[in-house]
């Protein structure tokens, strides 16, 4: 199978020369689809109406010639040749009703679609490159002025930052946040610290009030702070699962005990 394949279609001398030029020029092609597209031009018809059978035959002839001329063809070209040979047989033989795969016509239609799409993209690329281009046909400002954003960073610090910073240095060993009127404030951390060891002994329900630190119950301000802190610490211990809490009625005393479940 070689030249007589071409004679199936009446091909002009020019077309045949073009087809042979393909061989010599194989390096210039961008893969088998490109070769097929070039071959299809010899049919001089709408790509949708292209004869895929004729195209397959032309391609196979192309590969044969390349082989005869001992031209190294990339694997892509040979895979395409094998596939086209398969397609050709599908198109020539009557369809096998037991065959599951796509029909020869479907495969041929998709190949035609691929070729048409590649051609469309090439045309689009050509149109794109033919557009007026920046720096060639139209220009941007040659002497752009300094259009800038000036980023100024201002540093901020609050009085509290300052005081905390200072307290941090002066009490580096036992760091506590500095609080101005500390002597009237009992913190939750203090309450927690106080309650953690105590709660281990609370096997029975005990009023929360008994946990208030000594010396904090006389002055109402101190008492309020201590109560709030102790309550918050109790909630924390309940959350941690160390303790249970109950209040039988509104405003009734709040009672605590160690959590005993296993």
């Amino acid at each position, binding site marked *: 199978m070689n030249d007589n394949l071409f004679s199936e279609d009446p091909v002009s001398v020019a077309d045949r020369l073009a087809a042979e030029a393909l061989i010599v020029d194989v390096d210039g092609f*961008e*893969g*088998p*689809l*490109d070769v*097929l597209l070039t071959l299809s031009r010899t049919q001089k018809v709408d790509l949708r109406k292209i004869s895929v059978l004729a195209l397959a035959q032309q391609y196979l002839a192309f590969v044969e010639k390349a082989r005869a001329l001992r031209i190294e063809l990339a694997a*892509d070209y040979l*895979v*395409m040749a*094998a*596939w086209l040979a398969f397609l050709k047989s599908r198109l020539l033989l009557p369809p096998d009703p037991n065959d599951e*795969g*796509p029909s020869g016509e*479907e*495969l041929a239609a*998709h190949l035609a*679609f*691929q070729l*048409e*799409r*590649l051609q*469309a*993209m*090439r*045309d*689009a*690329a050509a*149109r*794109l*490159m033919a*557009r*007026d*281009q*920046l*720096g*060639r*046909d*139209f*220009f*941007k*400002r*040659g002497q*752009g*002025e*300094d*259009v800038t954003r000036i980023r100024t960073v201002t540093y901020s610090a609050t009085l509290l930052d300052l005081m905390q910073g200072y307290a941090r240095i002066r009490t580096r060993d036992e760091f506590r946040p500095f609080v101005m009127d500390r002597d009237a404030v009992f913190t939750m951390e203090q309450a927690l610290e106080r309650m953690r060891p105590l709660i281990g002994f609370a096997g029975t329900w005990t009023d929360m009030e008994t946990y208030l630190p000594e010396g904090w119950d006389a002055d109402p301000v101190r008492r309020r702070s201590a109560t709030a802190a102790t309550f918050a610490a109790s909630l924390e211990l309940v959350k941690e699962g160390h303790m249970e809490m109950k209040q039988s009625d509104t405003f009734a005393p709040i009672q605590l005990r160690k959590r005993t479940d296993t």
Partner: protein
Amino acid sequence: MTDAPEETGTLFEAPPMAEQERMVEAVLFASAEPVTLADLEARMPHGSNAAQAVEMLQKRYDGRGVRVVQVGDAWAIRTAPDLGFLMQKETVETRKLSRAAIETLAIVAYHQPCTRAEIEEIRGVSVSRGTIDQLLEMEWIRLGRRRMTPGRPVTFVVTPQFLDHFGLENARDLPGLKELRAAGLLENRPPPGAMPLGEGREEIENDDQSEMFEEE
């Protein structure tokens, strides 16, 4: 003169439109690169309407030696294309793009967002790393969102620099886009059965693409 616009903005009314137009004119003239409406408004006094000012300016420059053009969501002043012959001195020699690079660029532009496998399927040949790298380097394409298909492949989309270079307002203005779509040539038609080309490529939904072109 160095008052921050924010300061004056809270104290005074927005300047008259003619003045806003002057401001837009000054900023667009001064910047070589396109300027977004948001950036324009950030520079102008509080309450300014950059969009309207740009529109007025665009009309004013209609038919002049320079034009006010839209590039994506930004605006720029560019010389009128018919006067390009005067600018030979300014012409920048651009690197000659290979045929592969030009085709790849067109495929990304028309099919975006577009994976490498899709580019390869359309061209019927593998795309060399260098080709994509060159386009990325020129800032004509950039990485888009990953495709939500097996392997989560990266996609490529064109950039504002691409639009600026080819004088396009946005990607929908690509020449012949409508016709190509009407002809079904921008579809990702899965091949019937196995195909020797672009093998191993996963099904692709078309959602991404319509989103890309139809937005706004």
